[in-house]
């Protein structure tokens, strides 16, 4: 049975995209010194949306200097109460212009408008609202009576949740009194640049937030800059390791939020229909471009067949297509490059002998797309069970006992998240303790909240974003010399 839907397109009239954007340094948009520009593309249509500036070393110098001036003269000496008010303003401005941000995010990223409208943008505003309230209460952060900011923070964020990751980085850093040089991912700069307008509307003092667009080279220049006191990075484990290496022997602090290969574990007493919804949320939310995605489904053997059948049925109802359509469940893959990576791993799954099933959906002519894909007969040794695919591809494995589930779930260098589905409370709490991962979702998956700390174990990184724990990534004891030695944690 199929349902026909009339298109329900969100209007893009609310957004006006400039033909080109400068760098946001010291409160103003300026042309890049190099004059070099790159294109940002709507992944659903391959249409060029705008030209973006590529920041070079002298731009990075200017941004860091501007952040340092703002730190020394204004932001670190301003009362927490006043910093809070700026952050509250930003939260409100984001709420006021929420629809505009949602449409722009969907255009630039390819994610369904339903997600950018209901998740990315409201959560971004909520993050500012939450950390705004911390700015004048930092003596309660657990770091002594007068905790001090770190200085100038360099923040490098990914393309999967562009505005939300900006909020996760900026809100706690600013609340604690740091100033920031932020680099969005090169394929998704537009909402960060629109956020720069929010900073202007909020009358945020110039230099407190600087936004540099560019690719990996720009990021490296920020990481290696002597004027930076702290680096916060969200992205691939590979790049995270190179940043940790680059900071070796320096006094810079570091927090890393890296890759994942989360197990979503379904026990035989779980309500299967709810679990199926959780599996879908776990791996097909945001086209699977989620570091904490539940990409390894661990099914208890006795319910494996039944669950896979129910899952396949459910996936046939998912609608892939125009991200601006309010009915769309699966949007576009963010870039050609990412689609190539996903397809390469799908081929590896085929070649290694796993059994592939692909949801029957029509793929649009233009743009980059990947239909929801499930692999069964997967072994732990397969690449699709070990490597982060970062796409709508689920690897299914089975287990018999809770011990076996724990062993399989933990047998990965990653440790970002995990899911548990069971009606038995004692088992859930036991599993939650055994799983070596920073976020455990029991009978739910992919929930986020500004009050809830997020971050990984092992090679998924260190440090937390969100909650009271998120403050310690941007604060230090005011007078404990021993504390200065805390490097990367």
């Amino acid at each position, binding site marked *: 049975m199929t349902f026909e839907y009339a298109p329900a397109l969100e209007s893009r009239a609310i957004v006006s995209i400039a033909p080109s954007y400068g760098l946001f340094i010291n409160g103003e948009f300026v042309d890049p010194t190099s004059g070099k520009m790159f294109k940002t593309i709507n992944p659903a249509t391959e249409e060029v949306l705008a030209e973006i500036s590529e920041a070079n070393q002298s731009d990075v110098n200017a941004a860091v200097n501007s952040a340092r001036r703002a730190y020394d003269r204004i932001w670190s000496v301003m009362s927490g109460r006043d910093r809070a008010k700026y952050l509250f303003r930003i939260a409100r401005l984001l709420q006021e212009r929420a629809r505009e941000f949602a449409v722009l995010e969907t255009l630039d990223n390819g994610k369904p408008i339903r997600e950018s409208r209901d998740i990315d943008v409201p959560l971004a505003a909520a993050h500012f609202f939450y950390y705004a309230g911390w700015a004048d209460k930092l003596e309660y952060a657990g770091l002594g009576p007068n905790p001090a900011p770190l200085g100038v923070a360099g923040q490098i964020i990914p393309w999967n949740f562009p505005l939300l990751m900006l909020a996760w980085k900026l809100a706690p850093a600013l609340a604690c009194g740091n100033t920031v040089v932020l680099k969005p991912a090169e394929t998704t700069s537009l909402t960060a640049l629109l956020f720069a307008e929010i900073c202007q509307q909020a009358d945020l003092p110039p230099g407190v937030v600087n936004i540099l667009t560019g690719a990996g080279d720009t990021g490296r220049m920020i990481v290696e800059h002597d004027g930076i006191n702290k680096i916060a990075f969200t992205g691939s484990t590979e790049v995270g390791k190179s940043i940790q290496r680059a900071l*070796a022997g320096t006094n810079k602090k570091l927090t890393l939020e890296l890759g994942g290969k989360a197990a979503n574990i379904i026990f035989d007493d779980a309500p299967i229909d709810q679990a199926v919804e959780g599996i879908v949320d776990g791996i097909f939310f945001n086209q699977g471009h989620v570091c904490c995605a539940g990409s390894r489904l661990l099914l208890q053997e006795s319910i494996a067949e039944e669950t896979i059948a129910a899952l396949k049925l459910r996936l046939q109802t998912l609608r892939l297509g125009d991200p601006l359509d309010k009915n769309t469940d699966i949007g576009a893959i963010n870039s050609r490059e990412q689609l190539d990576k996903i397809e390469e791993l799908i081929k590896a799954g085929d070649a290694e002998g796993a059994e592939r099933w692909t949801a029957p959906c029509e793929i649009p002519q233009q743009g980059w797309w990947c239909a929801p894909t499930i692999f069964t007969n997967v072994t732990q040794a397969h690449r699709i069970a070990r490597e982060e695919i970062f796409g709508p591809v689920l690897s299914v494995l089975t287990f018999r006992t809770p011990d076996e589930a724990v062993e399989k779930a933990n047998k990965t260098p990653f440790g970002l998240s995990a899911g548990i589905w069971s009606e038995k409370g004692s088992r859930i709490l036991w599993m939650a303790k055994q799983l070596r991962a920073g*976020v455990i979702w029991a009978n*739910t998956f992919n929930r986020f909240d500004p009050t*809830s700390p997020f971050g990984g174990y092992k090679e998924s990184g260190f440090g937390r974003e969100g909650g009271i724990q998120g403050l310690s990534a941007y604060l230090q004891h005011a007078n404990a*010399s021993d504390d200065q030695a805390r*490097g990367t944690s």
Partner: protein
Amino acid sequence: MNDRVEVRKTYKLFIGGAFPRSESGRTYEVHDTDDKFLANAAKASRKDGRDAVLAARKGFAAWSSATAYNRGQVLYRVAEVMEGRREQFITDVQAAEGLGDKKSARVVDSAIDRLVWYAGWADKYAQVLGNTNPVAGPYFNFTIPEPTGVVAAVAPQDSSLLGLVSVIAPIVVTGNALIVIASTKCPIPAITLTEVLATADVPNGVINVLTGDPAEITPWLASHGDVNAIDLTGVTSQDLAKQLEIEAAGTVKRVRRPAQPNWLTTPDLGRLASFVEIKTVWHPIGA
């Protein structure tokens, strides 16, 4: 009875609750501050380091699942046994650090008191570092600290007992297992401490103590796939510290950089918080 020939001790490593010599068969001479020969200490090799990681991983399984109450009692027990050997420690520290009677006693007493301080944290730090979170939705959400895993630490070079204890205690009280490399030039207080650990109900493998040259052993620990964190407190060479951080990045280890704090002051929770992971659990609320 000055003509009695004293019975001298062979100083060995402490791995997995046992006292092996270095598998390399090597030793090095230890002298007091007047350059008088004290002992031949074992010179641990990279193989000893790897054996210690194996032992620590085994120790971690038991120790991390022990109750907080139990861990607190074990650490307190270490303090009790140290108190019983107080005179020996004072003599050891005197020889190692060249301190006078009074200062040496103060250092030993501080080390014992430091252990008692950390022992008391065993069942409290989770209440300070953890919490419930008021998420905007029908979910119960809580955050707890858990041990990082296997930690490799370089003990301070100068503060051979107090510094050592101040590095060890926060790592193990939180449920981690540890490989610590004692002060190279004054390892004897650390070796005496291993005799205390062996008789104080510390499960085998939870604390492993190596003597030798950190520059030789630590690169293998920093790059080891089964070590989760490194504490570089006692690393005195900036080049070595940098090299170890680079090695550690290969598996995204948690790193505490070198430091020379005043060990006599009461610490904050910084060290303890360095070797825990923050875990957050969500569950729906519904009738």
